């Protein structure tokens, strides 16, 4: 009985080709490997995403919470045709990007979550995701939205996305933009890099374990000061600070 219900609830994934891993040299001289993650790796990813839910800055909290949910959705077979790419340096998790296919011809970009700053890893990972949709899956366009205004503006400027305001995006239906094959081809030489195949030892290292990010974004050091910095006299501008105050009130 239960088995049958599960059959109904579980979407059937289409047999899309996998993302062929690639590698590249970063500004630091380190090597970044971008590859497709497996379902089995979701629990490890969740562990590294969870702390970012509490970083109330640059929409890390919102993006991390949504990525967490999307990862769970994939893990429990509740999201159709989702894929997750991970970017790793020496095994260390540097970025997660995900998306799904709406149809064979249209892709939907979900999120880009960078865990190391200052090396343009987020940009590399986003470009890899676009490459997956357009080059590997052969889709005509990818729908894109963003939570962070500044990140979005950057993509708008770098890729010159087209408006698709009639097509709601799955992330709350905010106006969608589209990266078409033509736009992608124009940006390709400047933004899409990487070499294939990945040398075996590098790939083995990446698959061996997803190690925790070494310097992930963290919440403000002083929560109360951070609320003061937002000109908030009640000391509750940050959700975390509000919790801290509730806790001390409960103790009293």
């Amino acid at each position, binding site marked *: 009985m239960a088995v049958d219900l599960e059959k109904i609830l579980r979407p059937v994934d289409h047999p899309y080709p996998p993302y062929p891993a690639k590698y590249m040299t*970063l500004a630091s001289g380190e090597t970044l490997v971008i590859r497709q993650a497996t379902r089995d790796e979701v629990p490890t990813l969740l562990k590294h995403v969870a702390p970012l839910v509490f970083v109330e800055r640059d929409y890390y909290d919102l993006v991390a919470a949504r990525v967490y949910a999307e990862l769970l959705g994939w893990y429990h077979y509740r999201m159709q045709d989702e894929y997750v790419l991970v970017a790793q340096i020496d095994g260390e998790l540097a970025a997660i990007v995900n998306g799904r296919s709406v149809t064979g011809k249209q892709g939907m970009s979900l999120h880009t979550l960078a865990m190391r700053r200052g*090396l343009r890893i987020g940009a590399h990972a986003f470009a890899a995701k676009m490459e997956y949709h357009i080059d590997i899956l052969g889709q005509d366009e990818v729908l894109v939205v963003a939570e962070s205004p500044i990140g979005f503006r950057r993509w708008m400027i770098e890729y010159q996305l087209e408006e698709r305001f009639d097509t709601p995006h799955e992330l709350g239906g905010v106006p969608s933009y589209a990266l078409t094959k033509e736009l992608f081809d124009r940006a390709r030489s400047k933004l899409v890099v990487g070499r294939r195949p990945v040398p075996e030892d590098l790939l083995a290292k990446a698959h061996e374990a997803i190690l925790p990010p070494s310097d992930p974004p963290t919440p403000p050091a002083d929560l109360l000061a951070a609320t003061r910095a937002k000109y908030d006299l009640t000391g509750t501008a940050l959700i975390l600070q509000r919790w801290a105050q509730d806790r001390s009130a409960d103790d009293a």
Partner: protein
Amino acid sequence: MREVYIIGIGITTFTRLEYPLSEIAAYASMGALKDAGLTDVDYLVVANMGSARINSQSALASAVADTLSLTPAGAVRVENGPASGASAIKEGFMAVASGMHDTVLVAGAERMREVNSLEATDFVATLTHPMAEYIYGVTLPGHAAMFTRLYMEKYGVTERHLAMVGVKNQNNAMLNKDAHLHQPISLEGILDSPEAMTNNPWVAEPIRFFDCCPVSDGGAALILASKEVAEASGRPMIRISGIGQATDTLAVHEREEPTDLMAVRRAAEQAYAMAGIKPKDIDVAELHDAFTILEIVESEEVGFFEKGKGHIALEKGETEIGGKMPINPSGGLKGKGHPVGATGVAQVHEIVMQLRGDAGERQVKGAKNGLACNFGGFGNNVIVSTYTREG
């Protein structure tokens, strides 16, 4: 003129700081007061460029004096573009040298990360000529780019030289716990690998991402004191031996020789004359490398190297911490970060660390004379100052 000594220093980490601006200034000031063993000063000078525009707070000095409970001491804010910091030091110097005050707190602070990077770019660009430059979309990286192109053409500076400055300074910053960037970069990653041009995109051609300083928050502070107070404090005797300042045309295109930075040259000449020393006497320098080209050109204009030869010295490693003329051991603006109003004060913070022999892993051995160059506008308001360890 009385002699003026620096007896206390303090600094915050340069990064994104989620603290009110006045607290950033005050935090560094507390460090400086503690270092000097003082609880009180006669006068405060607070350097800051953008509080009214980007933090909606004017008259910052009053807020800092109050936050530190230093009222009723006099307090003033100095705004002089990216040279605000050194201008505040000069102001404090004159206050002590004149005999008007015995102890002065000089603090610099900026909180630019409160706005996004597009607004920060615009804010910094407001220091250009409003009608002849700003309206066209000129940015500071844009000025640096047009200047770099001429310098490359005339003196044979290449992208590789620029990148070498960036690599050196970001690596120096690894040795500085207060630096903004703790991320080493390599020539391979930003210049040579097949991915380098994507890792290191144009900001303003021919200037790339890693040729620019980052946009940072941060504060730094110094305690300036008369000789009597300095001797009584028991702190190392670091004397402000020379200060020079010069201006140049506001619109960059009006300069007679577009590859000269005359204000740097003139300010340096004044500083050396006042101190009675020569460029070769300087053991360590903090130069204003907001863009990598500037470190090279300033190293020539302050007299360390012949005009047009700065990049050769760089190539030979002379500007590294262990080299003949170490430049920007702190990481410079490139690695340490550039909270504009704080920068001039932070440069001197580093020089004092070096002259005291407290700089740890990045210590320049036996440094006795130091120099700082704080470059305002695109070279239209520059302060060069020198410092000497006594005893």
